[in-house]
């Protein structure tokens, strides 16, 4: 298997010594020549996000969205919009749950009360996968197509630390059950410079649709 080394280029494009500081990070695959899109980057600051209620829809035997970011304590519904039943489960320590075969909308939403990565699966459709990232902080973002993401850091009254642990997660991390943690020197981010930290990323799986065309047609009947 090929290994790809993704260089996380974390550069403080802008550092504001005020209450809210913005940290912009670019994540690139150095040898893969290209930015990593959709990587999740967050750090533990003093900000807290308010719980929300949202949903992960099962449609066309896929979870939508594939990656859901919610604050701790949020409630998530798992409505089934397929004509087959689904058995949604998670064995992640952050939130193990088990919604046995059902159609339509389950009676109650699932409350994610601990931060962490929650992998979702369907017991009768192995290919169905989705991730819910439960975060305490608002300093969280996903890299854009250029592999860049900007985080607003809020340390409150406390002084800004010299070093900062950056949590980086991607569905294709070799161990995607938890984020990789990279410590970056924040003081050095005063200038417009970047540091690179190599992390491994699994190669992108072949882009077979979960259903082929005929199956889709069959489903729609």
């Amino acid at each position, binding site marked *: *298997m090929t*290994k790809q080394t993704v260089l996380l280029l974390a550069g403080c494009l802008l550092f504001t010594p005020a209450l809210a500081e913005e940290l912009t990070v670019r994540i690139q695959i150095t040898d893969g020549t290209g930015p990593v899109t959709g990587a999740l980057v967050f750090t533990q600051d003093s900000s807290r996000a308010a719980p929300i209620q949202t949903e992960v829809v099962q449609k066309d035997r896929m979870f939508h969205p594939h990656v859901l970011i919610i604050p701790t304590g949020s409630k998530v519904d798992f409505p089934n919009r397929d004509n087959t039943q689904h058995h949604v489960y*998670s*064995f992640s320590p952050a939130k193990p749950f088990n919604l046995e075969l059902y159609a339509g909308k389950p009676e109650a939403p699932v409350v994610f009360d601990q931060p962490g990565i929650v*992998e979702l699966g369907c017991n009768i459709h192995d290919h169905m996968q989705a991730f819910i990232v439960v975060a305490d902080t608002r300093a969280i973002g996903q890299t854009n197509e250029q592999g860049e993401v900007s985080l607003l850091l809020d340390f409150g009254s406390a002084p800004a630390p010299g070093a900062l642990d950056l949590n980086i997660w991607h569905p294709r991390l*070799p161990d995607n*059950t938890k984020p990789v943690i990279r410590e970056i020197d924040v003081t050095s981010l005063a200038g417009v410079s970047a540091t690179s930290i190599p992390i491994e990323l699994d190669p992108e799986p072949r882009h077979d649709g979960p259903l082929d065309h005929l199956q889709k047609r069959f489903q729609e009947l």
Partner: protein
Amino acid sequence: MGRLANRIGFRGRLVTAMVALVALVSLLIGALLMVYLFEDEKSRALEQLTIAERLTNEVIARRTDLELSRLNVVVRDFGFRSAIASRDPATLSSALENHSGRAGADFALLLDQRGELLASTLRRDLPDIAPSQLTNARQNGSGRSLLAIDQRGYEVLTVPVEAPGLRAWLVAGFELDQDLADIIARLSGSSIIFRTSADSPSGFTSFAASSDINSAMDPALLQSAGGHNFIESARYFTRTLNLGASGQGAFEAILMISREASLQNYYSRALEIALLVAAIMVFATVLALLVARYLGRPVLQLAQYARAVGQGLNPHAPNIRTGGELLQLRDTLRDTLAQLSRREAEIRHAATHDEVTGLGNRNALMHMATEGFRTGQPCSLIGLRVNDLSDINDTLGIEFGDKVLLGLSQRLRDELSDAHHIARTGGGEFLALLPACSPEALDQRAKDLHASAESPLNVDSTPFSLRTTLISMRLPNDASNTNELRRRVNLTFEQAVQQGSAITLYEPGQDENHLRELKLISDLHSAIRNNGLHMNYQPKLDNHTGKLLQLEALVRWIHPELGFISPEEFIFLAEQSGQIHELTDHILQRVADDARAWFHEGLDVGVAINLSAMDLTRPGLAERVARTFAGWHHSMDRITLEVTESALMDDPVEAMATLNRLRDLGVTLSVDDFGTGYSSLSQLRKLPVQELKIDKSFVLKLNAEPQDQLIVKSTIDMAHGLGLKVVAEGIENLETWKLLQSWGCNVGQGFFLSRPVSRADLMQTAASLLERQHELADMSQEHS
């Protein structure tokens, strides 16, 4: 070698050559096949090993895939994942045992994400699972390694348990056991041994083998070092297959094919080939025999044909189916036969036919006669001779003569149309064999034929008359074989010529005389040589005084078988056979010797010797006489040579010359048998003779026959008138003696005086004559 080749013959050689060729080719092919087969078996075994190698790889790969699939099912099992998620050790262990059992694993381990052991079905320390192995497995979806545990080899597979993120690792071991080995062995047809260098620093240890191998029995398989692709083994073709290595050591599979089994195949093939070669050779031999028979038969047929031709048969040419040279040979033989037959017919025709007349020749006639004698069939024979053919040829030419003969032969054909055979047996001699008939009828036919043959013949438009002599014989009375026939025909012809008769019948006995003469002629020769002749002497007395004057030598021949042979007969035969000169010389010599002898004994007489007519034509006679009587004790005129009158008349000129020469010697010449021949007195007058000897036919009965008396007296007178002395022989009585005495005859001779006496009795005879001299002497003169 050559003799052997001759003995086995063409067919044998053909068969030998073909069988040898087939044997050579089959053995060569057989040997090549064996070599190729051996190589083929070997390369087949090696090929099979190559296939087995690929097959082993494939079987193991498929087994691995299958095991992975099972493990993947296991790790996706919700219950299993639930059990892992529970983190309860007892639950984990029991679920692991249960689910690994589902996958058919021989052992299973469960590790957490970091590789720490969560649960195990093994009761011993866990085998060493390298972290890198997990990393690889994470990247590839699964990991595979080989491990040796407790002298057993395992394929160890590592699969992640994802839910859906990585929750744990499932490590499952599947033993490389005898079942696998048997499957591979069954599919590949070779035996297999799994071995590893793990746990055994010195070499390899086998941990599984297909059930047909007792690995303990061949330790060489285990001891041989790795790294070599082949393991030398006396019993197997082998190939070593590297299955992979772990940290412990290398794992190998050894594929083996029994040499014995492969070569067993080879040996059975070899036996089959040997049988095939043998069968081919038998078949080839039979085929060769058939072919040789087929090829040889025409040759034998031709040989028989040629033999039959050689034996003079006229066989049909054999029908030869094969074309080409043999047919050509057959045709050549046939043509040769035809030419031979034609030539033989020509030769036979030439041998049996006369070319001038087309009649048979002597051979043919004799052949016919032989046949007749053999069968005893009686028949008649007529012979014809043209009397003067040589004259015709000389005067009119041979061509004309041939035409005469041709015309004559046609007449013979016409006249003797019933003849068995007509042949020209000599120049002018024809013989014809006719059906048997009575002597009268035969004589009549001969007469008719004679008349026909002598009637004028038209030759070249010229009438021509022949003179012929005919003979006739009756067979087998007159001759019982061809020799007799030939002899008697000649004899009869000679007789006919002598007799001058136109038609002569053979008279029985003639031939016997002839044979006697032949015998005498041949015996005379030896008698002359061996003193077989006797000399007798008859006294000749002076007719006047009765005194013994001369002895006439008379030759006598007592034949040992035939007794007394008359001098006339054997002298005639001597003349006929050309021995007369020899005989004369012999007599001259005997007489000369005897005369000398009696002279020495005191007998004083001359000699008289008879000469043959043929002696007179012999030029050397005078010399002979001179030589014989050289140193003669008397005057030569006391030797009287007597010559017959007829001898003088045959060739007067030559006789005259001889007589003159003799006369010159001084001998007395006398005309013997005077009065019986046709003496010409004019001739007599010219002859140098001194004496006439009156033939005894005039003297024998002189005393009683007045005519004889007249003749004798006249002759004496005439002789005296011519100056010749007169001798009278055949004086039988005193009366005659006295008559002659009275007529003045000079000398007398005869039985009255003395018979011829032998040399031994001569003295006694002379003595008795001396006593009678007085009686014989002319008394009248004495008295007068």
